[in-house]
């Protein structure tokens, strides 16, 4: 473990930086006079609300974006990148928020893509030398302490493995500047620790790491230095020792800082109707493209409670939620809402029986990105009698309702005809809530409601969920944020390997207890399931 993975480049003050960068997209000033400097052997966190301009800055550093003004600095000197190739050759590599791996290639193919070792074949042909590639891959994995089945198809590899492959790809190409855009968003706590271990090791070896996160604890735990952005500007930059999380929060939020912590009432007495509102019994699902099949899932949800679903990512939570909203077919079992049997019914039937659904994948499922705000907030209501005149849509009523919905959740928008992609992330998520709660659903199924949402947005969403519960509504809430679950839920069900491995009531909530359950092995011995 002592071998170096990166080669430090001489001794410079600023390994990578930016000086007075300006960048606008049309009327949006994404970066205004932004400066940052990152030295060798430094982990530099960049934090800020959604839309603060972090990713834009990173893209500029990577040569993916031509800036309107200012300059990128490499090794103390200003440079002008003509494209990402140039940045890569300067040792600057980026792991994007969305994974940049070709799913149909093997992990090894993805690792070497763009810089393949070659050897002559048949005397005239240069072909990729897979032996050399595999040797390099094994070595690099070994140094980082991860063993990877390199011949595995990427689409079937676990998420954290994919992320490592991306980082290794950069290291293999000699990058000693790593830009990681929200790398922890998809990782389980243990995996985050493992990643941090690797990053610290890289820092020891001289790397410069830029790390974007919305989680300030992570910043405190990992980073040496933090730069805070707000509304396209850098508003503060300091050593992490000099700044605690509440100071960071103040910079991030600016004047609007709400009391981030809210008070939460005791669980309202579940509205006592005898039968539970939703009842799932003996659900089994194992379609081939599911990451994790479901085994014998049973649960009840009463009126007026928030039930949390916890688990390390990829242990079946996603599949369970999809079964619960009619977006995935199961093989056996029963799902009923209000005594109506809805097993394997379509999403529309679930909705008809009073269900709303907030998808974890806002970009691809929660919203139609290029459609108008009106279409997004009204989708699904087009057949409600209130908006119909005979067989026709009543456009006036439709638009009136759209405005009312947006106003109810205080969504900031331009006009109804703007594309929904013109909204900031938080406002997009509020729009999803505005749509899903408009019909006063009895049961809200909510997954990752605050992923990538800024603090103000989180506060609005949390208080909405709580008020929903106060008025007798129920919520099934899946989240990877343990804090969020513990703050909102009346009880938490923990999943591991597609099974429920335990239930924790509010009184017993503690990260330790839930964390233990999350890592529990529900099988007596390692069963053969692959």
């Amino acid at each position, binding site marked *: 473990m002592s071998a170096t993975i990166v080669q430090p480049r001489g001794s410079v003050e600023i390994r990578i930086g930016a000086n007075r960068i300006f960048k606008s997209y049309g009327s949006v000033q994404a970066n205004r006079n932004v400066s940052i400097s990152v030295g060798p052997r430094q982990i530099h966190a960049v934090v800020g609300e959604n839309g603060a301009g972090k990713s834009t800055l990173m893209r500029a550093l990577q040569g*993916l*974006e*031509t800036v309107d003004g200012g300059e990128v600095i490499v090794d103390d000197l200003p440079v002008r990148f*003509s*494209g990402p190739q140039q940045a890569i050759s300067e040792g600057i590599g980026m792991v994007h928020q969305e994974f940049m791996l070709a799913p149909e290639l093997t992990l090894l193919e993805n690792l070497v893509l763009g810089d393949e070792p070659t050897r002559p074949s048949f005397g005239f042909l240069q072909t990729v030398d897979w032996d050399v590639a595999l040797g390099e891959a094994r070595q690099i994995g070994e140094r980082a302490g991860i063993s990877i089945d390199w011949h595995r198809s990427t689409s079937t590899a676990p998420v954290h493995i994919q992320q490592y492959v991306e980082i290794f790809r950069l290291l293999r190409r000699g990058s000693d500047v790593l830009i990681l855009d929200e790398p922890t968003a998809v990782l389980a706590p243990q995996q985050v620790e493992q990643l941090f271990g690797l990053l610290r090791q890289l820092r020891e070896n001289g790397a410069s790491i830029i790390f974007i996160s919305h989680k300030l604890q992570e910043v405190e735990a990992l980073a040496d230095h933090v730069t805070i952005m707000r509304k396209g500007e850098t508003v503060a930059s300091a050593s992490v020792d000099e700044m605690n999380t509440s100071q960071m929060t103040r910079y991030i939020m600016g004047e609007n800082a709400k009391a981030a912590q809210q008070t939460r009432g005791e669980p309202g007495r579940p509205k006592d109707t005898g039968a539970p509102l939703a009842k799932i019994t003996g659900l089994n699902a194992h379609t081939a493209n599911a990451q994790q099949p479901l085994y014998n899932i049973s649960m009840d949800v009463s009126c007026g409670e928030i039930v949390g679903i916890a688990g390390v990512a990829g242990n079946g939570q996603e599949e369970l939620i999809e079964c619960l*909203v009619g*977006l995935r077919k199961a093989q056996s079992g029963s799902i009923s809402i209000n005594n109506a049997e809805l097993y394997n019914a*379509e*999403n*529309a039937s*679930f*909705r008809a029986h009073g269900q709303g*659904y907030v*998808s974890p994948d806002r970009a*691809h*499922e*929660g*919203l*139609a*990105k*290029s*459609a*108008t705000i*009106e*279409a997004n907030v009204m*989708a*699904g209501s*087009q*057949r409600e009698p209130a908006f*119909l005149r005979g*067989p*026709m*849509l009543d*456009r006036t009523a439709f638009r009136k309702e759209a405005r009312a919905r947006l106003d109810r959740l205080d969504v900031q928008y331009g006009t*109804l*005809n703007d*594309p929904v992609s013109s909204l900031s992330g938080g406002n997009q998520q509020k729009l999803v809530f505005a*749509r899903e709660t408009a019909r006063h659903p009895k049961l809200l199924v909510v997954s990752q409601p605050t992923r990538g949402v800024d603090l103000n947005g989180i506060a609005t969403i949390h208080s909405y969920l709580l008020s929903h519960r106060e008025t007798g509504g129920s919520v099934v809430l899946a989240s990877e944020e343990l804090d969020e679950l513990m703050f909102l839920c009346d009880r938490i069900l923990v999943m591991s390997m597609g099974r429920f491995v335990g239930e924790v009531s509010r009184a017993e909530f503690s990260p330790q207890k839930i964390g233990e359950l999350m890592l529990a092995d529900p099988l007596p011995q390692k069963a053969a399931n692959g």
Partner: protein
Amino acid sequence: MVDGGSENVVAIDARPPRWTLAAENAMRFSLPVLLAFLAGAVLLLAIGENPVAIYQLMLSEGFGSERRIAATLSASTPLLFTAVATAVCFRSGVFNVGVDGAFVLGGLGAAVIGYALPVALGWTIAPLAIGSAMLIAAFWLWVPGVLLAKLEVDEVVSTLMLNFVALGISGFLVNSVFLSETSGNNTTETIHEVAELSRLLPPSTLHSGFLLGLLCVLGYAFWTQRTPQGFEAALVGFNNRFARSVGISVPGTIILVMIISGLVSGAGGAAHALGQVHKFSDGFSAGYGFTGMAIALLARNSAIGILLGAILFGALASAGTTVQLFSDIPLDIVNVIEGTVMIFAVVELGRLTLWRGTGQ
């Protein structure tokens, strides 16, 4: 099945777009056309013709008199149907390129009914023929619709292939069972006179099928802007995962738009058979389905764009032919212009990034 992507943001909204948007749409429509004519002009110059004079001639052949306008509208009639039939699907992200085959089979069905039913049925023959043609064509496109919706069989390939199959089947039928005894060619009998669609501006061949085509365009506009199904179809086109997660049946929508597309294609084939050709014969469709596709793209699925596009291509077809009477311009010029319009219609000129795309 592809998501509609970022191209048409305002498809849902019926309100007149802001003027910038209107200007942009006008640009998007006219720029490809202008460029195509420019390409034609280069060729004309190359052969020593004066493009200005030729285009002037084409303009007057297309729109120079009431008769020429009527001829243009007559040539645009089948295109109204095929463009609407295409747009209905494209708008929902269903890349149906099989309108031509459906048009042909519908036309054959209508022609056969038009001559085979007893003449005593009188005026009822025409609606019967149109209705049957619509059913035949709807069934024809229902097949790839179901294959896409239920089995995820790529609709581009299936509909492209079905065009060849439709041509084969109709070619076989018109040469065997439905072959006219007295014909020196592969044609059916001529339909009964009572079954013919009336002519609007005699002596021009412009017939009431044109009105039916306009009705289709209007119906399409209405359907897209004013009905829940039209709204749902647009959402499916934007993002089918999203549509599914808000309770819209994606397979149902796919099948629905394919059926509508078939109904419109069939009506088009019937109108062409009953109003224009008065029989079915080899060469019944001069690639109307493909021209309709170019029009739908040029129009970015808007109803008004479809109307303008159909008239434009109708004019190109009618003027491009008769212009040969008064000049030495070969028909190939028209092909070049048409091919170029097709290509430029889908090229995003505004975002042309030559050697290095920054990409988003």
